[in-house]
């Protein structure tokens, strides 16, 4: 445990130094990566561990984002409290939904959460206090002055996002290696056997849903901070799809993998952009190439490495010495 803490502190320190050395665009992308890391952790926990498929993570993120924005704008609270409220709102909502979700299996849950991802952000259009289509501003303010003139807004976002992501990952990894993590894996693999061992399978599923939603909500608030805005469009269906893709590419049940998944999600538009530039500058190419790459990766990975590329690599490495 103490080693783990030391490891995370070291990681944070490395990131801090990196953040000082790269240009502003990379810093901004780093902040995005931190956001994706949290969101992917939420999927890994839900799908990889407890075996529930949710396509509605974008909706959970929206709940967190709006919760944080409303707290920040209406109560004038400090930033950390807004993030805390994001977690609380999303967790409550997740618990509620999880109660329904625990009764659903596989495709029903997938379809229901898909409908949620489509429908929930639209609520913002109905109620004035949610700001409608243009959304609400989410302003965590300028970085503290003592950091100096050179300390940009994006670096401030990067610091906050990374800090939150590290804490979130630390907590998640602890939860997953605890009794709960084991139980979830048990339910996923052998629901009946787990029940026989005295596990309340549906209660544990609701718990997984709640924790996962809380994480998603946190990610939603971080996303809102990075773009200074909460709006229905920020939590569109495409976000939910991107997250599922990232989680699959990361290896759906590997927590360290989420860092890799987040990296891919940030890198793909970059790569596609460069590729499109080389192939010609047509708008169409710019617009659809990222989607094409993501889809092809997703399909290949589901067919050939359903448990993530990491798994295949590990298998490969394990085989070699035996030969």
């Amino acid at each position: 445990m103490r080693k783990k803490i030391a490891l995370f502190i070291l990681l944070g320190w490395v990131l801090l130094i990196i953040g000082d050395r790269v240009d502003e665009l990379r810093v901004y992308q780093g902040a995005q990566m931190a956001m994706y890391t949290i969101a992917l952790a939420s999927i890994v926990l839900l799908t990889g561990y407890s075996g529930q498929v949710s396509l509605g993570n974008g909706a959970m993120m929206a709940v967190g984002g709006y919760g944080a924005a409303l707290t920040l704008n209406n109560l004038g609270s400090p930033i950390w409290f807004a993030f805390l409220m994001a977690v609380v709102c999303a967790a409550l909502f997740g618990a509620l939904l999880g109660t329904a979700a625990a009764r659903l299996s596989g495709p029903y849950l997938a379809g229901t959460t898909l409908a949620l991802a489509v429908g929930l952000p639209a609520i913002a259009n109905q109620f004035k206090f949610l700001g409608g289509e243009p959304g609400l501003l989410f302003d965590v303010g300028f970085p503290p002055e003592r950091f100096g003139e050179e300390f940009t807004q994006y670096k401030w976002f990067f610091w906050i996002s990374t800090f939150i992501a590290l804490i979130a990952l630390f907590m998640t990894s602890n939860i997953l290696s605890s009794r709960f993590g084991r139980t979830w894996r048990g339910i996923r693999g052998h629901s009946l056997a787990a029940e026989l061992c005295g596990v309340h399978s549906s209660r544990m599923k609701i718990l997984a849903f709640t924790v996962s939603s809380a994480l998603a909500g946190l990610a939603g608030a971080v996303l809102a901070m990075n773009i200074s805005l909460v709006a229905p469009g920020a939590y569109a269906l495409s976000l939910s799809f991107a997250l599922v893709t990232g989680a699959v590419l990361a290896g759906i049940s590997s927590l360290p993998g989420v860092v890799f998944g987040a990296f891919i999600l940030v890198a793909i538009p970059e790569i596609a952009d460069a590729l499109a530039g080389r192939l010609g500058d047509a708008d169409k190419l710019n617009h659809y190439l990222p989607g094409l790459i993501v889809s092809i990766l997703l399909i290949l990975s589901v067919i050939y490495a359903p448990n993530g590329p990491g798994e295949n690599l590990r298998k490969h490495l394990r085989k070699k010495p035996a030969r």
Partner: protein
Amino acid sequence: MQKVIETLLIGLSTGSIYALMSIALVLVWRSTRVVNFAQAGQAMLSTYIGFEIASRSEIFWLGLVFAIAAGALVGAGVDYFFMRVLFKHATSGPAAVVAPVIATLGLLGLIRSIVGLTWGGEFRSIKAPASTDGFTVGDGTIPFSTLDVLIIATVSIILIALALLFQRTNLGLALRASAYAPEIAQLAGIRTARTRTIGWSIAGGVGGVAGMLVTSNNFLSPYSLDLLLVFGFIAAVIGGLESMAGSVIGALVLGIGLTFILNYVGTSLVFIGGFSVLILVLLIKPDGIMAKGKARRA
């Protein structure tokens, strides 16, 4: 009172298009145990092909025929080249539960990108095969038009054709048998794999019709059929995912219900209305309104 009837009629026309989408989903679900999220993509691709034909020949119905053919071909192709490979590989591990769902999502994205790269993201519109001018009732006009009548008629014809196919032909029997008990069907000499591919291709054709009809009084874009998929899914769940008749009833109920929300409450509550219906059905009658007591599988 007139507004109620208007709303009912428009809802019927909307719901009948949902019905086609939900039938396509049910057909695939029964044979493969996969909710095919790529159905929206397949339908979109077929609609684009239908759109090309319809706008070049200026005959909507020719476009429709081509859309059906394209849909059937794509459907069969997806099963043959994609689902078979998928089931061969993804069988174990924590991802086994999610693999089919995610694979169809990936396919949806793939088709969307290909369509986008081919046709671009501009909004297209197909010239409607009939007047969209409302009928005159008394001294006013209602929003219900000849086109709506035509939509309802087309859907009815397709539904009747499907019913005959499933109830009266050997192929229909084979389809039903391999969906209900694949092993026994195989023992009885039915080539289940081939039958499944036929099921996918019928679903694809039906999806193509849904795409063409929904586009006949709206715009076509690489994203325009996503909502149709969601509503089709909700309708299928209302009907219990297994039953074609159930999903048609579910679709009509949903279409009429949502049109009432649209006309009486407001546009932004439509999605939420649909979602609430879904949750209610799942919580109160999770086997769908047509459930006959058989436990839900999967």
